[in-house]
């Protein structure tokens, strides 16, 4: 009988020890792809693995799984051609920008784990709104309306993609480290979660919001300040500021205060220089060279 207890005890110990074994993590949460060189998307998938998954620990998803979308909306996948273009462009205007400005490994540690492209917008016809993107749990950024992008229209690309990426990534950052309290107090009485879509740009600016959507609630206000500040050209920022102070409105003062709070928060919490980030984006936007952007294209892999 004693022997039986001894065997049970040893067995329990073995099981217990086995369950306590520390898991060893690899360099990426994503497993190495099964390499099937015969698939139609092989070259593109390899390119994405090499330029996104390995350096940034992110899965760049262009093939759409309906389970990954909000069932309340009708959407379609992105085209292969636009997926290729946006993959290259976001590498040039987003990932590479952070790489050159932020501390080493910043995006690999804090960036989204998944970027999902969707071809169409998510339209709420009854409210007259459409979603341009969304961030989920600090892990996933979904970019929409990609099929409708005009690649020669930087304002549109910013509005629908890059501003959205900065917007959603800022959500990820403030989900990890809380919003500064003083920011929350600046426009506390002016948020309009149900009627923001009826607000014009000028009205929003004059209230101290970077966009109508920024006036919906404080966390959207915060990320819209950062995103708009980064992607707007000097001329566009100037228009925003001058409109915001027209007729004695206090919008400019509030906007500048908010930008300063964001600037300080990013520096103190993330060691990220907002102005350096903006300068790098503006330089790249102004000197966009499509040959350079697409030179790593999967259709032209030998150029690497």
């Amino acid at each position, binding site marked *: 009988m004693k022997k039986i207890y001894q065997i049970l005890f040893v067995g329990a110990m073995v099981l217990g020890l086995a369950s306590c074994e520390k898991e060893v993590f690899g360099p990426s949460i994503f497993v190495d792809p099964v390499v099937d060189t*015969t*698939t*139609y*998307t092989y070259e593109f998938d390899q390119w994405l693995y090499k330029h996104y998954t390995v350096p940034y620990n992110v899965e760049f998803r*262009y*093939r*759409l*799984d*309906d*389970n990954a979308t909000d*069932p309340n*909306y*009708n*959407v*379609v*996948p*992105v*085209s*292969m*051609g*636009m*997926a290729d273009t946006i993959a290259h462009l976001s590498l040039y205007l987003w990932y590479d920008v952070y790489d050159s400005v932020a501390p080493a490994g910043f995006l690999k540690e804090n960036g989204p784990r998944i970027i999902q492209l969707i*071809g*169409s*917008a*998510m*339209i*709420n*016809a009854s409210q007259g709104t*459409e979603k341009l993107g969304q961030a989920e749990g600090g892990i996933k950024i979904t970019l929409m309306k990609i*099929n409708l992008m005009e690649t020669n229209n930087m304002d549109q690309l910013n509005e629908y993609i890059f501003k959205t990426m900065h917007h959603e990534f800022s959500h990820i950052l403030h989900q990890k480290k809380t919003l500064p309290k003083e920011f929350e107090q600046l426009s506390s009485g002016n948020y309009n979660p149900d009627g923001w879509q009826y607000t014009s740009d000028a009205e929003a600016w004059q209230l101290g919001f970077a966009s109508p959507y920024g006036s919906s609630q404080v966390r959207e206000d915060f990320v819209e300040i950062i995103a708009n500040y980064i992607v707007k050209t000097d001329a566009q920022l100037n228009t925003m500021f001058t409109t915001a102070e027209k007729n004695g409105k206090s919008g400019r003062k509030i906007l500048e205060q908010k930008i300063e709070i964001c600037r300080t928060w990013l520096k103190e919490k993330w060691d990220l220089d907002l102005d350096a980030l903006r300068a790098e984006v503006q330089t790249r936007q102004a000197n966009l060279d499509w040959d350079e952007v697409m030179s790593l294209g999967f259709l032209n892999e030998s150029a690497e």
Partner: protein
Amino acid sequence: MKAKYLLIIFSVACVLGACSREEENLFDKSASERAQAALENADNVFTGAKNGWEMLYFANPSSCGYSIILRFKKDGQIVATAKNETTTRNKLLTDSASTWDIKNDYGPIITFDTYNSVFHAWSDPGNDGDGLLGDYEFLILHADSSFVKLKGKKHGAYCYLYPLEEGVTEAQYFADVEAMQKRMFGNSNLLHLQTSGKEYLLRDGSSGIFTLTDLGVVAVGEDPDINPFAVTRTGIQMMSPFLDLTATTYTLQEAEVVGEDSKIAAASPAEYINEYISILSGSWTIDMAEIGDSISSVIGSINTALKATYKNNKKNASVNSLVFKKTTKGLVLVFSYYGNSSKATTDMSYLFDVTASDGAASFTYSGPADENAQKTVNAFPDIEKLLNTLSGTYETVANEPINPTAGIKLTNKSNSELWFTIQGKM
């Protein structure tokens, strides 16, 4: 001691319980093995059709059906071709730069997971968030080398795939479908569904969605039964069976479209003439090139009289057309002719009655519809001769029995030389 026995009994019970016979396996493979096998089977089926598949696509349960040719490549590429008014503006369009996949999600699913401008035209939400409410992911309900049945994952419409015959090109396929569409549904053709117990009226076939009602005119406020279908090269494919029937595939065989438990056909030509007028307010035009000598000679006399009267338009004064149609005064024959003007016609209406009996159609002239029509008859007495000549009982033969609007030849029962042909128009 008693406790000792109880312990023994309990132990034996436990041992016996542990030794109880295991449940018999219903399947010879595990669930995951069966799921994997289903995926592999589906993959092999889709890629197995040498000339691709004809997909009869229903965007949603309220949508008419569309034809798409799909060629599934082993490497995950999909080539889609379509030609229709709604999504391609009647141009033959092909897009080959996208992907498909089979995956497991409560059963095998086929997904078209990168954008194909041909295929996703129905699922694109457009500017209103809905678009045509189509699907791009489908449950695979059935898949073998001769037939695949899918169900849209979000909107729930059934779709059907059949292997495209080898040698048939995309252009030929869509030309054949268009010819079938015109043959069966040209001129808003009216059809009947014939079941073993009852016959129903099928309207609106030209829209790709049958409206099924009892025979006769639909009462105001009646909620009709809607039945979407797609036109194929050989007939039609219903999205779901009519009523409580089982047939979804109907094949055109001469005069009728035949399914496994029902048929679709037009009414007999004699009955069809009235049905087309009374239900659809359609008109019947006498084909001037397809009339017997008896009628031709009367029309010739009228033309002579018109030319004599309208001397300033001698060249063109003539009978333009003869059309039976429903008006507020009842059924009339509209006698249209060129008088003074070579561009504008003058139309006069003459009351008729049309009845069907024993496969024959009877036309009865009852007089001018108004004063002007009377004056015209007075001026040109041969018009009344024509109207009286047309009056009579006729044997009827449809040139295209599935669609009598293409032409019905009427031959007078008592005078075979007296005949004419009418064509239906909306």
